[in-house]
């Protein structure tokens, strides 16, 4: 890595601080604007709790302090990377997140891998046969997948692959209560990963296929493609090594921007497939006014998204040597 890149990375990491602070503030305000607090919900869930009991809960978790003070306490803790204790779950927020983060990352990385690989290939294939029946089929299917709600697609995939054909498990991340060798465990997890990753990835594959096709057509019109063809390069090489590499940049840009979106999408998918990731935790935290947990998850996910975007920017330089990081 050269000096310029190091400085670029450093600068981007510094940008994390205001981003995270802004996210924390915004979410604090939003969740405090919603009526009701976590003590009410906890007491409500327990049933037949007295008013005194509810107030004790509020005291225990500092929910009785003035709002400004609660905010200061929170920011002060965040500065020392202490995410606090979840009011509803009554466990350290960091533990709750770290328990589930790996599963979500695995699902996201696989899904985006599936999406880019299949989206790009289909886009290239469609562009090479522009106007032909292959192009038409790919375009129509992509449009259909794009328009299908992901959770419904997931349920249909379960019905087909898991109930009808009995080929793939309907949910979960691994077989339960079986001692497996690391290799067998990896295979088992992969087996469980197929349907959720496919469900989450297909939507993005559809977008990338359409984007890649348009981008390829644009590149095809440029002079260096005419040059490559004039040199007598086979059409396959023209498409994949010359056109595709250049056409890839918009896809990479979009993929980078969509990482946050992908994390949001995984909430639904994780619920449908009982995938033990962050998704469900976000949903519950929001429902239960679990401020600490929600802010913790948003903190971690914003860090993940910012870091992923940084990676994308670095990837640009590799794909296109004309881009340098200043």
């Amino acid at each position: 890595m050269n000096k310029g890149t190091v400085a670029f990375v450093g600068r981007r990491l510094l940008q994390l601080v205001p981003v995270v602070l802004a996210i924390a503030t915004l979410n604090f305000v939003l969740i405090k604007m919603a009526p009701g607090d976590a003590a009410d919900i906890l007491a409500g869930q327990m049933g037949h709790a007295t008013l005194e009991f509810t107030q004790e809960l509020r005291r225990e978790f500092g929910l009785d302090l003035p709002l400004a003070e609660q905010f200061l306490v929170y920011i002060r803790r965040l500065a020392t990377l202490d995410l606090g204790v979840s009011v509803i779950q009554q466990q350290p927020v960091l533990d709750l997140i770290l328990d589930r983060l790996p599963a979500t990352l695995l699902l996201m990385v696989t899904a985006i891998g599936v999406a880019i690989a299949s989206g790009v290939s289909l886009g290239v294939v469609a562009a090479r046969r522009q106007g032909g029946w292959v192009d038409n089929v790919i375009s129509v299917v992509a449009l259909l997948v794009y328009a299908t709600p992901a959770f419904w697609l997931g349920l249909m995939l379960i019905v087909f692959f898991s109930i009808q054909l009995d080929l793939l498990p309907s949910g979960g991340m691994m077989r339960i209560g079986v001692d497996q060798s690391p290799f067998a465990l990896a295979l088992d997890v992969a087996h469980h990963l197929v349907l959720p990753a496919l469900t989450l990835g297909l939507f993005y594959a559809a977008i990338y296929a359409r984007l890649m096709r348009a981008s390829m057509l644009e590149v095809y019109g440029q002079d260096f493609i005419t040059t490559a063809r004039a040199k007598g390069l086979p059409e396959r090489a023209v498409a994949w090594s010359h056109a595709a590499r250049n056409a890839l940049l918009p896809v990479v840009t979009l993929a980078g921007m969509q990482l946050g979106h992908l994390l949001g999408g995984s909430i639904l998918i994780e619920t449908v497939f009982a995938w033990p990731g962050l998704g469900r935790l976000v949903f519950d935290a929001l429902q239960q006014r679990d401020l600490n947990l929600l802010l913790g998850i948003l903190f971690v996910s914003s860090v993940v998204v910012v870091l992923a975007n940084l990676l994308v920017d670095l990837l640009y330089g590799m794909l296109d040597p004309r881009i340098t990081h200043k």
Partner: protein
Amino acid sequence: MPISSARTLFAASLLALAVIPAHAQKKGGTLTYTYQPEPTAMSTISTTAVPVALIATKIYESLLEYEGAGMKPVPGLAESWTVSKDKKTYTFKLRKGVTWHDGKPFTSDDVKFSIEKVVTPFHSRGKTYFGEVAAIETPDASTVIFKLKQPVPYFLRAFQAAESPLMPRHGFSDEEIATGKIRTAKIMQNPIGTGPFKLKEWKKGSHIILERNPSYWKPGRPYLDQVVLRVLPDGSARAIAVEKGEVDLAPMSSLPPAEIQRLGKLPTMVASQEGNEGLGPIMWLEVNNRSKPLSDVRVRQAMSLAIDRRKLVDVIWYGQGKPASGPIVSGNPNHFDKLLKPLEHDVARANKLLDDAGYKRGANGVRFKLTQNFLPYGEEWVRQAEYLKQEFRKVGIEVETQSLDLGGWLKRIYTDWDYDYTSNFTHNYSDPTIGVQRAFISTNIKRGATFSNSMDYVNENLDALFRKAALLEDGPERAQVWAQIQAILRRDMPVIFLMEMSYSHIWNKRVHGLITNGISMYSGWDGVWVD
């Protein structure tokens, strides 16, 4: 002088067990169940929410166990007990040789510690059960004496595993005890109990595995090797897992009602609404009695008459319940007034009552408008709200529906008191003094207290009856007081009783021995076995 000893009863029940052919119960195997959401802790001290109570009651026990729908107390960790004549001294003899999951002996000190330092201050119903305890004495390692300030008629029902779990003193650090960090103590995630099962693995978001406690005090028990909880957040996915046999049991209505009805018809499945009598979930429309027109009892009675409860149960809830007759569920053999008739459905009379009350229909047929809220627990509650809107329209009441999530709902109903009516449900629990009194006694009109008297309903006569019932032992006299209370509440209609909800359980036919008492899913399952 002892007036009650249950040792003979226990011997008799053991004898009864011996009569069942020995090959009936099988040892070994795994029972997998699913419930949503995932528990947040392994002890009901942390929270008594259903998912926690389900799993914690396999790990922790209390002094007694309970038999039958009437929840008759039988020996558990206490081998026997005596009650003094003035009903203010309860002496329990502990079973000897019981050990915690970590091998250390279970003693009377643990009982005293659990009740005084853990259950009373931190359990959500701790003060309800043990608020009258003046002192707990432990003359020796296997004797515990509770001295009460005044008699508590339901005291012997306090010793359920979910209500007063016994926890080891040595499981808490001195710092956790000194700073009162009981609810977040390490043991809440890493349980050490005396129960038939102990924690083997908890993979958050995925599953929990409990394994048999090899040194459990009941000889030959538990039958199962493992109890597994699978976390399946999506309702349809849970139903699929049950249908495919990947999950053996979906307890406490953890499947959508439509799925329970569908799966219950399969030859491989058993669907049951039994085993919840000790919880007694009951649903009503909570009505704000503060202002007109709902402050008029005739209006509330008319609304009650406008509802076809049979249709409500069958269509909206897929038959998973029973029309309510009053505040106490009919499955409660000790307190329900069996003479009560079902609440009527009579649109003509409803219209007449509203006319008499002075609310004539306007030009568009509307008498007045109301806003309804509903408990945000899923689609059935939404559909019920839509159904009620239709029925009330027929008697000239126009209803607008307002949707809130749980946090917003709790605040609007119990803190702001800013509502007309809302669907709601609560539990009778093992005694109506615990479960029913709370919602109707006028001293419980407290801003911010969830599931309290949000209606602003005041009836001094009723308050006095509640106080009287709270001091009487179960028997004809107490039953009479409860009958009076039920009659008053049916007449005054501070809330409109709708339905005895049923917690429906659905399980694979390979599972046996699940339903044993009024809190079957909150029992230890040591007698459950699989084919």
